[in-house]
């Protein structure tokens, strides 16, 4: 029977198949760990006298509670929040005690966990990858099966390198056609989620396919897979191809020499075979896609940037009407209004969705020679120290600074707003991150999710702006 990419990766990692009484036991090739969702798992190991089974299949970094403020004279990024200090110190101790390699705050490879995995070549096609973080779906862009887990499961993987899992269903998400100028991977995924809703992918693993997906760069594919969870799918995958192999080649942990050739030969066997059956499929036309923006308080509440905020009164389902009313009240918006021209206080360019070097290059090309509006605070937060260093080698930091944007240290920053980078109550932000939940970017803060291009266009004018007004072919 023809197999899907998902089923090939799933089947090749079965330590024990699913039975009528028990879930499958899945082997985990790579476990990524960060400071926020791991402490209680290490406590469990200590309580039970357990070791980490494979510290050499585990990689740790600091990202969530770390500040992105400038280094001091000694080159150190000072942490001032006492709770963060305690959490980070405990994390360092946990990694040291259990022999797990750790990228500590400010060191050359530190960064957002979903940026560093691909960057270091740890993320490779056909692997199983987990992390106590829902945006682990990002790594699926390489044809890996990658998904977020809870802290109990972090403990399970630390202790056994395995995980109990029921086999999910599969959904083919086909994006035909070609993107127009100024429309990006972020707009593809926001349009998909607007179509299926935040719960539409619950119980599924997505496989993104079609001409528009194949045409995306590796980093753009990561943007798409990153937000699979915002459509409810724990994982999203893209079949590996030449784009994938070129991206992985030469990275520190990538196979080398003859091993590389063997690996690529194996990776070429991964794509879904003709005739393979999915449990569900949806289609999107890239030709008609415009820049997208969210208006509400979950990522499914998205519209074309030149569209209008929906009218709750037109919804027949009472629960949905109540939800949309609540969202519009929180956001301070009116039914049927346009978002174009909406005044913005903060623009955030960053997060595991859109903080890679290609995102920063794209944003820099549009912002170069222009000034951020006086009424806007624009924060640029590179995804990792490596991204930051590369951007600085290319002079991108000077372009952002000259435009009046803040150039900050690497981390999750205002995507999750637990490190002091946050909105004030009532403020509006255009953010390249992945969640617009109430208070996500600071209590009372109001978030519009959009692409880096939309973020820059908005920063320059001070109001929500269609990036196609500023986009020129030279920016491609």
């Amino acid at each position: 029977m023809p197999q899907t990419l998902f089923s090939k990766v799933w089947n090749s990692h079965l330590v024990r198949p699913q039975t009528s009484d028990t879930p499958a036991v899945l082997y985990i090739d790579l476990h990524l760990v960060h400071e926020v969702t791991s402490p209680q798992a290490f406590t469990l190991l200590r309580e039970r006298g357990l070791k980490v089974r494979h510290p050499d299949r585990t990689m740790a970094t600091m990202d969530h509670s770390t500040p992105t403020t400038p280094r001091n004279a000694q080159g150190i990024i000072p942490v001032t929040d006492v709770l963060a200090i305690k959490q980070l110190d405990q994390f360092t101790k946990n990694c040291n005690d259990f022999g797990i390699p750790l990228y500590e705050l400010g060191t050359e490879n530190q960064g957002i966990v979903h940026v560093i995995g691909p960057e270091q070549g740890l993320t490779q096609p056909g692997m199983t990858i987990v992390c106590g973080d829902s945006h682990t779906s990002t790594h699926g862009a390489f044809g890996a099966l990658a998904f977020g887990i809870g802290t109990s499961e972090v403990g399970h993987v630390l202790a056994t390198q395995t995980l109990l899992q029921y086999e999910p269903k599969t959904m083919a998400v086909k994006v035909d056609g070609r993107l127009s100028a100024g429309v990006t991977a972020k707009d593809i995924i926001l349009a998909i989620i607007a179509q299926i809703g935040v719960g539409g992918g619950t119980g599924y693993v997505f496989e993104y396919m079609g001409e528009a997906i194949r045409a995306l760069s590796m980093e753009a594919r990561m943007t798409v897979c990153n937000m699979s969870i915002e459509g409810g799918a724990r994982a999203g995958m893209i079949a590996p191809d030449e784009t994938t192999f070129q991206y992985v080649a030469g990275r520190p942990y990538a196979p080398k020499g003859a091993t590389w050739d063997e690996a690529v030969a194996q990776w070429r066997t991964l794509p879904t075979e003709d005739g393979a059956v999915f449990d569900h499929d949806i289609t999107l036309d890239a030709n008609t896609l415009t820049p997208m923006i969210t208006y509400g308080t979950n990522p499914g509440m998205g519209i074309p940037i030149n569209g209008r905020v929906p009218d709750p009164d037109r919804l027949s389902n009472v629960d949905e009407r109540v939800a949309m009313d609540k969202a519009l009240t929180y956001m301070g918006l009116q039914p049927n209004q346009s978002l174009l021209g909406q005044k913005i206080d903060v623009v955030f360019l960053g997060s595991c969705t859109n903080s890679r070097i290609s995102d920063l290059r794209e944003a820099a090309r549009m912002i170069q020679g222009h000034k951020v509006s006086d009424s806007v605070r624009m924060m640029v937060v590179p995804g990792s120290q490596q991204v930051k260093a590369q951007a600085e080698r290319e002079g991108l930091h000077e372009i952002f600074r000259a435009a009046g944007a803040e150039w900050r240290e690497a981390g999750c920053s205002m995507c999750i707003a637990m490190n002091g980078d946050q909105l004030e109550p009532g403020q509006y932000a255009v953010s390249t991150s992945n969640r617009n939940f109430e208070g996500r970017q600071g209590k009372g803060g109001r978030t519009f999710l959009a692409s880096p291009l939309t973020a820059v266009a908005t920063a320059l004018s001070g109001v929500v702006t269609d990036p196609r007004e500023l986009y020129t072919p030279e920016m491609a």
Partner: protein
Amino acid sequence: MSENAKITTFTGRLAPLPINDIDTDQIIPARYLKTTDKEGLGKAAFFDWRYDAKGEPKPEFVLNQAQYQGASVMVAGTNFGCGSSREHAPWALIGAGLQAVVSTYFADIFRSNALKNGLLPIIVDQETQHQLMSLAQEDPTTQVTIDLASQTLTLPDGRAVTFPIDPFSKHCLLNGVDQLGFLLALEETQAYEASHPQRVETTQFA
């Protein structure tokens, strides 16, 4: 609550929260994740819905209302627990006194996390959900009985609705079996490792 607490039958009052797509950032805002413990998170549950900017309880929020004090079963809108993977969400709900949440469906990671901590994610059809919501709103003394062995939720009128739960989680919860113990005892893991080359060695540059 530990991973191996036993659950059989319990009876509790309902707390209605008729909102769809309640995400884990509402269940526990991220600023309360700077902890290294599971304990003490109950006070952070629904913090931004529960307290105003000055930290005063908002009287309109269900868990602040006298008639719903002590409720142990939350009835919520559809797709409860979407968003992040934080297990702090079930820890906070348990800390706030909840033993079960009823919805038409749950986000995958939240449901998995809840089951590992003995917080029952109870899936019912929309009609039952609406009925429970109305009962809870009209009469805060309304009680339901949840029996895990028979997978039933019994309404005050005696009607019992069944709910799905995977057989392994049910077995673990009923018998106090811990899932990590199951994985640790598995002999197949070693055999798998012997026959499958290591994909990446994270310590190679250490």
